[in-house]
């Protein structure tokens, strides 16, 4: 490979912190996908009932909400070398999606 542009090398964080954070968001999205797939499978066990379909749609919506937050953050991280701090609103949204998924699970168990 050729030599790296000096200005570019200075701007680039040698610890690759934004990249690592981006990948952490990807991993978390993957984990939420697994949980959502399990919840959908759980909701549709024993045939499609009305309540099962409703819970299933709710789980899909929660997964989409998580995906949106992650996508937003990943784009912000990719946009600049010194990205802004994660907004508490986004952190809370991601957590509330997770909590709501667990509540759907509790409703399915009971």
């Amino acid at each position, binding site marked *: 490979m050729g030599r790296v542009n000096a200005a570019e090398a200075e701007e680039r964080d040698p610890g690759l912190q934004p990249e690592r954070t981006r990948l952490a968001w990807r991993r978390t999205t993957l984990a939420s996908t697994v949980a959502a797939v399990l919840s959908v499978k759980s909701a549709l066990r024993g045939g499609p009932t009305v309540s099962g379909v409703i819970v299933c749609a709710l789980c899909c919506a929660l997964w989409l909400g998580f995906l949106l937050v992650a996508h937003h953050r990943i784009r912000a991280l990719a946009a600049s070398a010194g990205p802004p701090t994660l907004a*508490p609103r986004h952190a809370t949204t991601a957590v509330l999606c997770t909590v709501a998924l667990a509540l759907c699970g509790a409703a399915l168990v009971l």
Partner: protein
Amino acid sequence: MIEFARNVRLWFAPEEIRREGSTPDYRFSLANERTFLAWLRTALALIGGGFAVDQFLPDLRWAWRAGLALALLAAGVLCSLRAVNHWMRCERAMRRGEDLPVSRFPAVLGLLVAVVAIAMVVVVTVGWEG
């Protein structure tokens, strides 16, 4: 408890955090964010485990199945709420230049997971089927 309520208010009010202290090196904030995400993954794994117990142990007596699944789901909820709370406390401590907060939570979660795992092994081997 009052402290917790104050923290909950901060979850939704980013400006209030930004008003305190000075902005730390962005790398510290990103490391804090990754720790938050790691806890969130732990929470998602616990919730997935709850769904899995409900689904893959259908022969179990209902009370055991529901109890184990609910224990895992509740652990997931606790873990995710604590994740955002701890993230915010760390962020605030870094802005103020204080020591990072210490926590008993990892030990409590570890013990809870151990208890659920032992209960699951016992229930499945003894075979309390419905």
